[in-house]
């Protein structure tokens, strides 16, 4: 059993062997991974110590206090939050060894090739085909809403391998090399004017069978692990009291007394209260996780977080009055990472519209809460026993 003292000793050993002030950033990250202090709940040899996840903060705090470099969670968020837990759960020992270290040390950035123009919320309807050819699979199709594809070396990919069975059964999950021939990434400009996302075209891309994750036809099951982790990653972000999107508006309120009205005051206080209660929900969720009893609240947090961001960013524009009529810059940009709070009020307002769509729409999440948490029956399914190829589309 790993103890706090044990962890502190390991951190001290790491810092002694690799003094942060004289060790190049990348070398330090490598050494930290090899010392099992990357994600301590991962197995030994894979950046972890099989230790309780709740103790990670001990390591993070000690290292931060010593001025040690850390990986950029925003840049590698999809790898950390979605690819890594899925690879850990379903990968072979070879895949664990090959992918987890460069993922965590930021040498390889990951993206997620899930959504398609015809399959978003109904992910299991996807049509990107993977056909077996010797030791390889040949993949052809189009993906969309791929954040960071332009900076990624690897992707988690779900494909259709058997169109003759009902949609959930004919899918297979792969790890896709984004530099392979046939992968084309095109910017997808969005409502804010910037292109944080991409369309990805896959034309006869060859993926070795060794890069298949999970069994053939088991892609839906593997994807579920990714999706559950995605919601935790989106909803479980820790933010301080008075932080996040509400914090941005409260700053404006404090600095610009001339903008205040009594109507907006009560609106602002309502949002502040919602923000504070959401902060407490997130804390409680983390405490449950640490106590080894993860609750089903993750989806609810994501829904509430989206609504709060949208309301707070909308209030900011309203509060700004004349200035709210202006936008900072419509020039298309390719940002490095997702930043909901970045830029100015108009950007925040528009970007927040995506919060209730990305990572599972609020409608889908409400269905998940209703069916999986509250145990309500699903809507009658007309696609249940129909082969994927026979579904109307």
């Amino acid at each position, binding site marked *: 059993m790993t103890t706090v003292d044990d962890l502190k000793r390991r951190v001290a050993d790491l810092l002694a062997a690799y003094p942060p002030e004289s060790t190049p950033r990348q070398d330090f990250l490598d050494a930290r991974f090899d010392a099992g202090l990357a994600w301590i709940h991962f197995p030994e040899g894979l950046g972890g110590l099989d230790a309780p996840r709740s103790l990670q903060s001990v390591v993070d705090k000690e290292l931060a206090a010593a001025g040690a470099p850390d990986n950029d969670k925003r840049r590698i968020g999809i790898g950390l939050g979605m690819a890594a837990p899925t690879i850990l759960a379903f990968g072979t020992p070879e895949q664990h060894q090959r992918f987890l270290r460069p993922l965590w040390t930021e040498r390889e950035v990951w993206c997620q090739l899930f959504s398609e123009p015809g399959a978003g919320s109904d992910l299991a309807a996807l049509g990107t085909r993977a056909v077996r050819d010797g030791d390889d699979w040949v993949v052809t199709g189009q993906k969309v809403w791929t954040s960071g594809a332009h900076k990624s070396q690897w992707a988690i990919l779900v494909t259709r391998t058997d169109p003759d069975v009902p949609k959930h059964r004919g899918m297979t999950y792969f790890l896709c090399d984004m530099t392979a021939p046939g992968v084309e990434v095109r910017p997808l400009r969005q409502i804010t004017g910037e292109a944080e996302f991409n369309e990805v075209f896959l034309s006869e891309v060859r993926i070795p069978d060794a890069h298949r994750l999970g069994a053939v036809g088991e892609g839906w099951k593997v994807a579920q692990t990714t999706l559950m982790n995605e919601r935790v990653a989106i909803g479980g972000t820790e933010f301080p009291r008075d932080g996040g999107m509400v914090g941005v508006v*409260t700053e404006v309120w404090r600095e610009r007394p001339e903008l205040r009205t009594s109507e907006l*005051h009560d609106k602002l206080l309502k949002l502040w*209260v919602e923000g504070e209660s959401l902060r407490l929900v997130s*804390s*409680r969720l983390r405490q449950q996780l640490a106590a080894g009893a993860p609750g089903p*609240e993750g989806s609810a947090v994501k829904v509430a977080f989206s609504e709060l961001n949208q309301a707070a960013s909308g209030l900011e524009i309203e509060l700004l009055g004349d200035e709210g009529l202006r936008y900072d810059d419509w020039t298309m940009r390719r940002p490095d990472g997702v930043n909901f709070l970045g830029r100015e009020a108009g950007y925040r307002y528009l970007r927040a519209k995506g919060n209730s769509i990305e990572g599972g729409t609020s409608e889908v999440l*409400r269905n998940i809460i*209703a069916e999986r948490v*509250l145990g309500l029956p699903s*809507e009658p399914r007309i696609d249940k026993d129909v082969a994927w190829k026979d579904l109307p589309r």
Partner: protein
Amino acid sequence: MSDLLYSEVEEDLRASVRDLFKDRAEPAALIARTETAEPYDLELWRTLAADLGTAGLAVPEALGGHGASAREVAVVMEELGRSVAPVPYLGSAVLATSALLATDTSQAEVTERLGKLAAGTLIGALAVPLSTAPGAEFPSAVTAAADGTLSGQVRSVVDASVAELLVVPAVGPDGPGLYTVDVSSAGVTVTEAISLDLTRRIADVTLENVVAKHVADSSVATSALDTALVTAAGLLASEQLGIAEWALTETVRYLKERYQFGRQVGSFQSLKHRLANLYTDLVNARATARYAADCLASGDDIAIAVAVAQARNSPIAVHAAEEAIQLHGGIGMTWEHPAHLYLKRAKSDEIALGTPGRHRAALAPLIDLPA
């Protein structure tokens, strides 16, 4: 960091309180009781307060209590919300007890009264309108004469109709004071009002030259009263959580049982989404209620935690009860279905101890968001 989970001891306490209410406060009996001469179930109160020891949870052992904290009281309040059991817990075990606990407890009068309140052998009430918010001005409805007798009228006092002891804030020649009054004393009149909430009653208290015992003066009286109001407001958030939880659980159950248009009503997406929203509210209500209880127990961050919990949970409880009635359809509108008891409790709780708007206004200076 505050502990927002429930301890094993708290879960055990919950289980015994819930079992008791399940046996002795089932909905049909509650509804029947509301129309009798005894709307409160004082047998149930004795079991809850005395036998299970819940009246003295937050009272130190030296004063006859159990030396637990607001966290445990909050669990009892959750179950009270879930059952709307007709017992004077809020008035006696929370309001009157908290007020006396915040005075000089070495006084013989206070020690003796607290011991009985904690044991559940004495029912108390705090003589302020139930709508009084924390931070409100010290009430002047009752005045203390130079000889120490009290006169005046206080409307809408929760649980006063069954109280044997009144804790009365009054203004005397030397300013604010806190007094104890036996309801049996000459000059005390308690007139039960017709309450919106059928299972938690309010009454008007009239005092005419009533002999009283003075237990706190000026600043102590003011802060003791405020402590009682803040504590009760913070704990009420747990009751509101209990109400919302009942509403969601029962509505989910009903929508699984009820068939219309050839399928379970609960399979319609438009209704499922409303229930998912109630669940999201519930998750929020639980976090804020637990935080308020934990802060009341630890003494940290009380003012913000209580204001947030009240501002958040009052509307959540009302909305949940309203949705329960709507989604039960015509059945939800009937007297025989208990949903109305919960709506009445939720709406009364929204006004009790400060409305959500008042709590938001109180919050503004605390978080540096001035009007």
